[in-house]
């Protein structure tokens, strides 16, 4: 047996499933970077601000404020307006709760899947590949849930603006 170290380090073969899992992570990371870059291109806060401000100014300039102030003194009308507000909050809460339940279900299901299928793996590389695959699956599912929550937040925000306009329309027609 030679005591001199080998000139060449020992080699080992990468398990194909591990290679595949790593490639999958790399592809996903590239896609997410591209998505972020696209999002940066989409953001145009100045144009958004000017558009909203212009439309808002035009609308508010034509509102009959005297009628609204008179109507606002009528309890029945105010009650109608605030009942709508309450309905809005109830709908918002239902949607938020539903999204949160979906997120919890996602995390639970993915965790169970990861644990249930790992017992049969004994090779370290296979276990590593399984971990990488399952954690990426979890990340992508959570990303979908988060996107849905962001959509909900946007819908809620838009609904509040719509409620305000509806209220002014209701009061100004009395």
């Amino acid at each position, binding site marked *: 047996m030679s005591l001199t170290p080998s000139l060449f380090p020992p080699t080992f073969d990468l398990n194909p499933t591990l290679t595949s899992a790593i490639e999958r992570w790399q592809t996903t990371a590239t896609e997410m970077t591209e998505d972020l870059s696209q999002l940066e*291109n989409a953001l145009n806060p100045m*144009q958004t601000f000017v558009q909203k401000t212009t439309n808002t100014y035009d609308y508010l300039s034509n509102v009959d404020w005297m009628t609204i102030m008179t109507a606002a003194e009528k309890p029945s009308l105010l009650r109608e307006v605030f009942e709508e507000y309450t309905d809005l909050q109830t*709908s918002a809460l239902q949607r938020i709760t539903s999204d949160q339940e979906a997120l919890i279900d996602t995390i639970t299901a993915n965790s169970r899947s990861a644990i249930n299928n790992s017992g049969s793996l004994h090779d370290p590389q296979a276990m590593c590949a399984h971990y990488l695959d399952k954690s990426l699956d979890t990340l992508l599912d959570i990303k979908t849930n988060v996107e849905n929550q962001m959509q909900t937040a946007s819908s809620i925000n*838009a609904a509040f603006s719509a409620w305000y306009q509806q209220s002014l329309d209701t009061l100004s027609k009395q």
Partner: protein
Amino acid sequence: MNHYSNQVIALFLVTALLSSLSVASKKLPGLSVNLEESSVSGLSSGAFMTSQFYVVNSDIMVGAGIIAGGPYLCAQSWVFNNYITNATTACMSPLSPKFGPNTPHLLELTRQLSDTKKIDDVDNLKNDRLYIFTGKSDKTVLPIVVEQTKVYFQGLNVPDSAILYRDDVNAGHAIITDLNDNTPCPKTAAPYINDCDFMQSHEIMNHIYEGLNPPSTTLSGDLIKFDQKEFIDSAYTSMSDDAFVYVPQACYSEPCRLHVVFHGCEQGAKVIGDNYYTQTGYNYIADANKFAVLYPQAEPSNRKPFNPKGCWDFWGYSAPGSIRPDYFTRDAPQLKAVRNMLDRLAQ
């Protein structure tokens, strides 16, 4: 040396000529199409575009098929939201019906546009026929939005008897076919062409036009890829260089009618190839009934305009930098481009 350089020049010219032949699309032909009985249909952003094209060009339209789409001008529903916010909330997944499309306001805006001649006279609509569809499992454009499309057109005096409103199919967000290898009916997944055991394109055409022949089993005509750029005069339309038209053989010798088909987001040829313009059934019913079918194409754009999913414009991206983008009158870049195509087909 002269002989050698002549050979090189000749080789260069031949190569250049062959290259130009291989990439050039055909020109859209003039077919003396009878535009007066035209119709239009589409899915999702294509459905919003359908509403737009139909209302703006109502002089020549006799009907429309709106699959999972909202009413004309939907993105202008609520003034305290900007257009894209309305487009992605009130016009797709509002919190509740009360905060969906603001139909009374949209009707008012439509009548103003008609009175100021920015669109055709809305009185044209009262003799037309409409097909409106929403899938029970559609979570992308909710049924409460599509219901407002029906209310909108009723508000423009389209009789109830002329509207076929289907909300009884457990479909996801998709156009429907009867092809087994399409996506299962209740799912929402690319390419958004679902098998629910009926051919929706045929249902649309049969509702708009009475007395149609059954669809052909084989196609007699030509599917032409044509140069779409020729009809576009803006750099921000997000429309592809090429588009497609199906021309039945009979249309070369006699005037045909025309149907325009708008694909949805992520369904243009650049994304799903020929799936939409060959696999959704339009060509077969067109072939049997002497219709040309025009398939304008939009494509993804990640810069200006920002349209990463290749949607048709129903919120104003085709006029970037404009506070009040015109995406909705006859001067709108996409609407004008498609109308130019119709005018060519009518020559």
